[in-house]
């Protein structure tokens, strides 16, 4: 049965879905502490099948479409639950399920003892099902459904500790902001549906929507599709939800908000390359959004003191990179295929090292008693040895340290953008994007290593919470701890007198948490060098997706831009400069950080406060709309309902005129009767 991917393709989303259903039904009563088992089993099985699918793609099953039942059909709306398999899907599948499996394993220890243990794994499993469904979908509605599905899981998991007001608020914000983008995606789908002869299948849409007479509408459709991607992948201006989403448990941040879900937008734009490459203006818009977001988020990340937020802004920034690459995929420069491959390549490597970094941050947080403010701990490299070296690898990969995975993929992107910044109407724009990308590369290295040095170097400082976690909490640690002992299983032996120095090794997380770190660290080290310079990745995508996909214009790329040595050297220099500066400011001469801060006070404050974008959007959109709502409520009460009541007064006015007749006097009534009778008689007589 494993020869033909058709026979098992549907199992890839189905197994995690089944796992989720099992946990949801039996988790609370029966599985309890074993709730992670169905999730991990489902994820690992899906991972195995994904690898199998990848080999099948490699062996030529590269345009497999699995059609199943009709989901719903009425008139021109015909939605089939169909799945497709090609190289892009296979790459996404393997990335998602592989990282998902390891994160699930990590979480089984991290979330140990949490009262919502089963809830957590049910949602994670559901997420894996939705995410694999998203990349497997063969039509836009199934894609949209899974798109919303991953949004739901994100909502449920960000708000996992819902008793915490900040988590509840973050969950709502995440849901609403991404839903704003989802509307865009939906509108895009609507337009595509209407210009492609009422079809929703990728192949048909790519073929028919590309007709020249629809170019204007197609441009709009692409803008709207990209708006969906902007929401989901946290690009400016809808990036504001992602940093807040760090309220969720760290494995969630690693899985959903770093490695997989947020890349759905990148996947979408990559999948729709056959459409995007036809509208260069929209591509320029994509690129500018990507570059601007990369720069903006990088700038904000420079000054954040919350370890997870640094990583979150870094994620936003790196996603910006990917969009920059996608936007640079200009058809007439023969860049489309190369650009998309670069973006997807960065997506994969980023998934590895960013998941690693988040899991490392989770491990730190776990050891430090849920403290994540970098100012409150330092010098942990002896205390958390394994976490330290894995985090170092992740940081180096993110910073683009030569030969590590981030280096290869980032270079591809820079090369693509550079390639796009000449000989086209938008060349100037692309050139600025290129500059922004270079600056961002330096900043990335700086803030990554700033976080690394602040956490693992300097004098050893361990916050109080790490010792006495479940007695009282620090003032500003507002975790609502009715989820008692969320993942502090191994601190129960902490000495009761807080001053006592516990054994150093005591802080390090358990092996179940460390193994995923090691595995991902190996990935962060090797994925780039194995797949990048060897052209394995590019050839795979090109041969088994771009050449076989409908509407891909000229996939036979000349990779002349490949490995542009000056750019490579330049970006490495930028990166090393960033690392060096971080080392200077946070290890060698800690006073330098303060000096830097003082010398650029204005910029520092804007960066620290995230350029006041949250406040701006609140004042610009949320507040006026809420005001409008209040106003409409008043309008409804006084005007609309008042009008109704006014209409109801009309009969009352007439009644008032007729009222005196009803005087209750019998004889008056009798007179009226008599007069009436008389009138009647006269009328009859005179007729």
């Amino acid at each position: 049965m494993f020869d033909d991917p058709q026979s098992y393709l549907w199992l890839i989303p189905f197994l995690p879905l089944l796992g989720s259903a099992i946990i949801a039904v039996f988790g609370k009563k029966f599985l309890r502490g074993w709730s992670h088992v169905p999730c991990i089993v489902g994820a690992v099985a899906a991972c195995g099948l994904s690898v199998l699918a990848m080999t099948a793609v490699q062996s030529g099953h590269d345009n497999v479409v699995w059609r199943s039942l009709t989901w719903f059909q009425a008139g021109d709306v015909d939605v089939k639950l169909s799945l497709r398999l090609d190289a892009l899907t296979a790459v996404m599948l393997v990335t998602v399920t592989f990282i998902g499996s390891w994160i699930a394993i990590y979480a089984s220890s991290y979330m140990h003892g949490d009262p919502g243990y089963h809830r957590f794994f049910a949602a994670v499993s559901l997420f894996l099902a939705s995410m694999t469904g998203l990349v497997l979908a063969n039509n836009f509605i199934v894609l949209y459904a899974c798109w919303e599905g991953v949004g739901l899981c994100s909502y449920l998991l960000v708000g996992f500790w819902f008793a915490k007001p900040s988590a509840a608020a973050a969950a709502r914000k995440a849901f609403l902001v991404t839903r704003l983008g989802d509307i865009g995606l939906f509108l895009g789908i609507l337009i595509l549906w209407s210009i492609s002869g009422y079809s929703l299948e990728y192949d048909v849409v790519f073929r028919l929507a590309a007709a020249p007479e629809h170019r204007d509408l197609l441009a709009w459709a692409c803008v709207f599709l990209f708006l969906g991607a902007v929401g989901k992948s946290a690009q400016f201006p809808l990036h504001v939800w992602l940093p807040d989403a760090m309220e969720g448990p760290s494995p969630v941040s690693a899985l959903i908000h770093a490695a997989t879900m947020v890349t759905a937008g990148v996947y979408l734009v990559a999948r729709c390359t056959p459409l995007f490459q036809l509208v260069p203006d929209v591509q320029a818009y994509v690129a500018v959004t990507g570059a601007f977001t990369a720069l903006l988020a990088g700038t904000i990340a420079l000054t954040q003191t919350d370890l997870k937020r640094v990583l979150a802004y870094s994620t936003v920034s790196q996603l910006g990179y990917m969009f920059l690459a996608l936007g640079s995929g200009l058809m007439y420069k023969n860049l489309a295929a190369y650009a998309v491959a670069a973006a997807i390549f960065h997506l994969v490597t980023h998934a590895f090292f960013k998941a690693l970094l988040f899991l490392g941050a989770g491990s730190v947080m776990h050891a430090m008693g849920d403290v994540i403010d970098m100012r409150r701990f330092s010098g942990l490299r002896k205390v958390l040895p394994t976490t330290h070296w894995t985090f170092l690898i992740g940081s180096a990969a993110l910073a683009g340290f030569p030969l590590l995975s981030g280096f290869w993929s980032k270079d591809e992107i820079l090369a693509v953008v550079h390639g796009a910044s000449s000989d086209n109407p938008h060349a100037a724009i692309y050139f600025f994007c290129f500059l922004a990308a270079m600056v961002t590369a330096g900043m990335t290295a700086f803030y990554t290593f700033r976080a690394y040095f602040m956490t693992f170097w300097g004098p050893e400082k361990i916050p109080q919470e790490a010792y006495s976690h479940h007695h009282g909490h620090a003032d500003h640690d507002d975790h609502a701890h009715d989820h008692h002992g969320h993942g502090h299983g191994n601190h129960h032996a902490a000495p009761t007198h807080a001053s006592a120095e516990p054994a150093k090794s005591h802080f390090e997380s358990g092996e179940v948490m460390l193994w995923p770190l090691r595995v991902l660290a190996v990935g962060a080290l090797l994925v780039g060098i194995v797949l990048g310079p060897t052209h394995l990745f590019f050839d795979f995508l090109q041969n088994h997706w771009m050449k076989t996909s409908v509407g891909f214009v000229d996939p036979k790329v000349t990779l002349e831009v490949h490995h542009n040595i000056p750019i490579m050297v330049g970006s490495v220099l930028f990166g090393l400069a960033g690392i060096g500066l971080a080392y200077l400011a946070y290890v060698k001469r800690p006073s330098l950080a303060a000096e830097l801060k003082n010398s650029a006070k204005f910029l520092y404050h804007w960066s620290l406060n995230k350029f006041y974008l949250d406040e701006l959007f609140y004042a610009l959109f949320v507040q006026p709309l809420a005001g409008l709502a209040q106003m409409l409520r008043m309008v409804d009460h006084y005007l609309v309902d008042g009008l109704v009541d006014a209409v109801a007064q009309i009969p009352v006015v007439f009644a008032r005129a007729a009222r005196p007749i009803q005087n209750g006097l019998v004889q008056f009534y009798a007179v009226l009767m008599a007069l009436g009778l008389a009138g009647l008689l006269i009328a009859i007589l005179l007729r």
Partner: protein
Amino acid sequence: MNTYETLLIALLALPFAGALVIAALGPKRGKEIRWLALGVTLAGFAIACLLACEFLRLRGENAGGALVTSEHFFQPLIVPGPWELISFGAYGAVHFYVGLDGLNLWLVVLTALLMIPAVLVSWKSIDDRVNEFYAWLLILGAGMTGVFLAFDLILFYIFFELTLVPLFFLIGIWGGPERRHAARKFFVYTLTGSIITFLGLLAVVVVVADKSADHKFTFAIPELIAQVTGHLRAGTDPAFWHTFQTWVFLALFAGFAIKVPLFPTHTWLPLAHVEAPTAGSVLLAGVLLKMGTYGFLRLALPLVPDACIEIGVPLIGTLAVVGIIYGAFCSLAQDDIKKLIAYSSVSHLGFCMLGMFALNEAGLTGSMLQMINHGLSTGALFLLVGMLYERYHTRKIADYGGIGSKLGLLSFAMVFTCLSSVGLPGLNGFVGEVQVFFGMFAVNPAMAIAATAGIILGAWYLMSMLKNVFFGKLKEPHHDGHHAVPDLDAREIVALAPILALCLILGIGPQPLIETFKPEIQSIEKLMSERKQALHTSGVAGR
């Protein structure tokens, strides 16, 4: 009369009989009354299910093929009788003409289903005049079923108005502090509209009789539609038919739009909802409002197609879009949970009307699905709010906080229902909404685009409500009794579980449902496109 025809009669007669017995039992025997009412509603649901199975079997036999030809409108399948009710001798007669077809089947089942939780949720909360309460409740159920089942205009109207009386008493006696005002407003407002509707319906009957060869009054809906369609096709006296349709459409609009309710005739709804007892709210939102949309679908579209195309589409489309956005904004600003959900009904039924007046198959199908979806999810929302109210005796959002950590099951059900209501894929709301949007986008993209605002606004107010009431720091309102407030008990779970299960099932596999009403929807769509074509050519000729 075969078994199923008898069952159909029983579906209508059983609640009446039950109501009589319950009323006669007297207010003291609460326990017997409740169990009897539950038994009656359960039996009703069982009968409805049996009928649905039989209907599907019959449909399967003739494969619905005959219906697609638009000469045959709405041929009901299980028809007892029809017996003469009021005879005008040689001038025709009003018949007791009821039956099942694709349009009403699921609404009947929905009514029968929602009656069960309506009885269950009142189990403890209604202590006063128990017998009257349950008697009125059962009569309300019978009336609503009758509206959907009726295939005779007069019978339809009788049932349509019959539903007002029980609900008037349910709100006026067992309602909240402003119950009298609410009950009166509800009654007078909807009655005013439906009287005008009745005039419109009578006008159709009279005109059709006048134009027919034997001058006989026909009250049977399929027959009327066939005759009107015939006249329209013949194309004689177009000026007369144009004026006639315009006026009849406006008359029908008056009653049905108030019932739906379409903006700006919605103001009775929040008031009635807030004051009504939970069971009343559930049935009001779940079923009663569908009588308006159903009226449009069953009567307005086929009887006055030209007016629907010419006036209905711009008028109702605009009102629906305004209602979607306006209702959502009003919802957002409410501080009372029940009022919030009441306004969300205005918004959701806007989607329903928007899809219907796309006048194509996708839109009509989406509209039908939205009727059922809204019945399920909003019904469940009102049930849940009622359960919350029963525990804490307040509905102010500000009084609550973090209830999720106290009442796990209730909160789960609430989150689930809200997600269904915001149209999350995999749950029922999504399928209907998608079809409404696609249907509308194909004919009028601007309206569809404007209506998408409802998607985000809908998520906004429901998610805010969830956040403020169920998440965050625990803040319980003052409640009497010293023991902890209990989570859902078995009775409440039984009341909710079927609805939630259906939400999931309809989200995953809606196609069987769609197939059921496809023949009717297609025949309406066919008529509409035919009339559109005719109007177009006559318009061109006129110019």
